[in-house]
């Protein structure tokens, strides 16, 4: 296993960057990552415990806050364990060596004779003392060597393998969310978000608004309007009243159908990757185009934040994925030094990417700036959540496969047309926060460059199929003029790209009269992917037999970003009134799995969310804004629609960890689309695959 230095360690090379010892001689570790519900605090604690040799309950982990922890960028892209966890391992390995060497001097023995286990120094099997006794001698200014010797895989996970999620009980029965914070004298704020970020306020009766129940103050700054009230209820009710009574100048340039707009583009594609000449051989090409609409992140809890200004210093509590990036963006909005702002992560509802968390933080900060020294809590309404939050990007992908005379795929050519998938705070040098556009001293967002290829790409993520298909070319066309706000949603472009590529592969297999899974196995790039697909094949044979006419099965496979976790998904569907997914079998390989059950939970969540996207979800718009007012207008998967899930993990303890949270969305969507094709004999190419889409497709095929 190659021991590359993870990037966070290059930025934060000192032991004291990653841990401290409290006066009570407890170890507190620092991570620039945050808990988003994916269980990474538990996994990181497990990694620390295992590396050091101490019970997890004896240590604690401080997650991202700008005044304390390393800046590890955004907690995104399935990278928490891959980068953040591996950095902590190096820091902890250095700490362990120091503890052993200090203990050796104290005992007058060679450090090699000592072991550290359960927080105890052990010499030849005998207890010497607890490490607490030497923690005050740790040199926190020492550097973590680039080759810090972390434990060999064979020494790992002797203990602390099966620990419960450390945060779950409180989340089930208590009040740990930023939404739940209560402080002395706190006021409650609510923004009045217009239909579009570029809407302009025309009229609002501020005096009448200030007389609404519980309202303390109305804040207006340009087209930003917000209220401060004595309770969350009064704040929400006053903001709703203001929204209904105010008039706004709407933007020009309605775009009624985002997908048609994307399809109608004719500006040049940019070649983003090319591994050879896809046109070198003459022969037959097959092609398939699939599009997906804008979809919501759809957090169950709306965006929320608490902010307080005191002596020109701002403190913000937020469920943002990137506290440092939010701090810098806020500094840009308020034109103050970054040092004047502290941003602290606090738990929020699952975000699944860049949702309204950062925007709500700015709303809270603007409102709090009107009441010196008083903490202000903002919790968006469901209306705000469905109108003001950025959405997963609409996109369309056309893939073409070149076939030789034996039906093998010998070249692959992909064209991705998409709204950019990233508009995170600070990228492009602008705040990229909604209310920053509304205020008088307006800060417009820079044109998004999308996510660079080194981070797995945005729209083009996983456009390169995970098979050996000869030369592959990927071209991307970004479309910037849609009036809606798009942002990173789990797996970015990989979801749609995997669906189209796997769909095309399926079409070719059908045409060749080959089993779709066998066809894929024939084109495998390596033994690792082959083992995965063979396992899926052997686990799913029984589900392919005795199918009724309305039933079908399908598979989807991809290696996320081409280099991360591998995931293959099989589904059975019944197509009747609509599509029902009956069974799901998945096989995944995430390298070393820190918490195998946690990994499975992530993979299952990705599959279920992807089934919901694929069968149900599309944001309805009026050309300017969304027209979704409640969950009734945007149905998502329900308990009674959940298939049986068989989630298989191929554990590879000797490989490096690859990340898990975003590996299954593409394969699951592809498996569903392929299973529907199998059941119906017709492929739905405009997602989602609703009953209406099926009827339309069947009718057009009859003609």
């Amino acid at each position, binding site marked *: 296993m190659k021991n590359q230095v993870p990037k966070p360690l290059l930025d934060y090379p000192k032991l004291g960057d990653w841990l401290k010892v409290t006066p009570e001689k407890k170890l507190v570790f620092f991570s620039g990552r945050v808990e988003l519900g994916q269980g990474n605090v538990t996994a990181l604690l497990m990694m620390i415990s295992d590396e050091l040799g101490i019970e997890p309950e004896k240590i604690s982990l401080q997650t991202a806050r700008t005044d304390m922890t390393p800046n590890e960028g955004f907690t995104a892209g399935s990278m928490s364990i891959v980068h953040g966890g591996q950095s902590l391992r190096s820091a902890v390995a250095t700490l362990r060596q120091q503890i052993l060497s200090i203990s050796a001097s104290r005992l007058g023995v060679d450090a090699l004779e000592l072991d550290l286990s359960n927080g105890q120094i052990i010499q030849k099997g005998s207890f010497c003392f607890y490490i607490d006794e030497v923690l005050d001698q740790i040199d926190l200014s020492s550097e973590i060597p680039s080759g810090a010797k972390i434990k060999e895989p064979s020494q790992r996970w002797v203990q602390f393998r099966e620990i419960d999620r450390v945060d*779950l009980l409180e989340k*089930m029965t208590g009040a740990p969310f930023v939404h739940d914070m*209560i402080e002395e004298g706190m006021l409650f704020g609510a923004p009045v978000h217009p239909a579009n970020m570029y809407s302009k306020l025309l009229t609002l009766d501020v005096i009448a608004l200030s007389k609404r129940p519980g309202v303390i103050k109305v804040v207006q700054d340009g087209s930003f309007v917000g209220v401060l009230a004595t309770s969350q*209820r009064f704040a929400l009710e006053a903001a709703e009243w203001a929204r209904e009574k105010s008039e706004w100048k709407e933007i020009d340039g309605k775009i009624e159908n985002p997908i048609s707009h994307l399809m109608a583009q004719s500006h040049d594609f940019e070649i983003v990757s090319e591994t050879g000449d896809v046109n070198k051989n003459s022969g037959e090409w097959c092609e398939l185009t699939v599009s997906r609409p804008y979809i919501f992140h759809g957090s169950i809890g709306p965006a929320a934040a608490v902010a307080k200004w005191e002596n020109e210093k701002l403190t913000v509590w937020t469920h943002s994925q990137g506290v440092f990036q939010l701090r810098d963006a806020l500094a840009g909005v308020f034109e103050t030094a970054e040092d004047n702002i502290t941003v602290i992560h606090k738990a929020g509802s*699952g975000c699944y990417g860049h949702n309204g968390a950062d925007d709500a933080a700015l709303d809270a900060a603007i409102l709090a700036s009107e009441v010196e020294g008083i903490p202000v809590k903002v919790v968006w309404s469901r209306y705000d959540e469905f109108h003001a939050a950025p959405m997963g990007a609409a996109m369309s992908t056309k893939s073409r496969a070149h076939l030789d005379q034996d039906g093998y795929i010998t070249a692959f050519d992909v064209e991705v047309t998409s709204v950019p998938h990233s508009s995170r705070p600070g990228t492009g040098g602008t705040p990229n926060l909604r209310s920053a556009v509304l205020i008088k001293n307006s800060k417009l967002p820079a044109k998004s460059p999308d996510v660079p290829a080194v981070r797995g790409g945005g729209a083009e993520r996983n456009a390169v199929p995970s098979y050996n298909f000869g030369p592959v070319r990927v071209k991307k066309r970004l479309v910037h003029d849609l009036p809606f706000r798009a942002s990173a949603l789990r797996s970015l472009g990989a979801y749609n790209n995997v669906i189209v590529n796997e769909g095309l592969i399926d079409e070719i297999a059908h045409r060749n009269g080959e089993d779709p899974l066998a066809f894929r196995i024939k084109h495998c790039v390596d033994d690792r992917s082959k083992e995965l697909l063979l396992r899926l094949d052997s686990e799913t044979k029984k589900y392919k037999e005795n199918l009724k006419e309305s039933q079908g099965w399908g598979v989807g496979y991809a290696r996320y970003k081409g280099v991360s976790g591998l995931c293959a998904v099989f589904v059975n569907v019944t197509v009747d009134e609509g599509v029902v997914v009956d069974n799901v079998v998945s096989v995944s390989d995430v390298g070393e799995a820190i918490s195998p059950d946690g990994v499975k939970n992530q993979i*299952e969540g990705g599959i279920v969310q992807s089934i919901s996207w694929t069968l149900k979800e599309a944001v309805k718009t009026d050309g300017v804004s969304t027209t979704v007012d409640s969950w*009734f207008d945007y149905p998502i998967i329900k308990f009674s629609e959940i298939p049986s899930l068989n989630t298989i993990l191929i554990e590879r303890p000797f490989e490096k960890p690859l990340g898990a949270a975003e590996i299954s969305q593409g394969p699951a969507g592809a498996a569903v689309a392929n299973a529907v094709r199998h059941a119906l004999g017709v492929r739905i190419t405009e997602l989602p695959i609703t009953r209406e889409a099926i009827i339309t497709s069947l009718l057009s095929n009859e003609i």
Partner: protein
Amino acid sequence: MQGELRCTINGVVHAIDSFSSEPLLFFLRDKIGLRSTRYGCGQGTCGSCTVIIDGEAKMSCETITKDVSGKTIETAEVFENDCEHPLVKSFIEFQAGQCGYCLPGILMASKSLLDKKQNLSRLEIAEALDANLCRCGAHSRILDAIEKAYQISNEKGT
């Protein structure tokens, strides 16, 4: 005190401001300080604010506080001192959740089912939970946990 409206929340009697048209959700969160009951939509469409009122699962955002006068209410805080409750134990065992925002509502909906001691199939449990949304996709584990809690309760004969 005569004429004052009251209700019993998690075994404790509380006075209700009878003039209030306040939804029970905000009464619980802001006045009583029981903040496990979550605001998700305020429209009765997500189930995050589900509590138990006289044995039935109800969304507290759609319930006017004064209407619970004389009634018995349970919120997820009842489990704070009852970590051995079959539901709590099995939710932890199955890691039945991810972000946890929807869980108190789901726990209360499940507890009202469990308390009724009906013999429900997995599909019937799922249908009973259709008013509760989960976005993380932990549904299957949640159903596993509830089934296990049923099993434990039945074995105890309680």
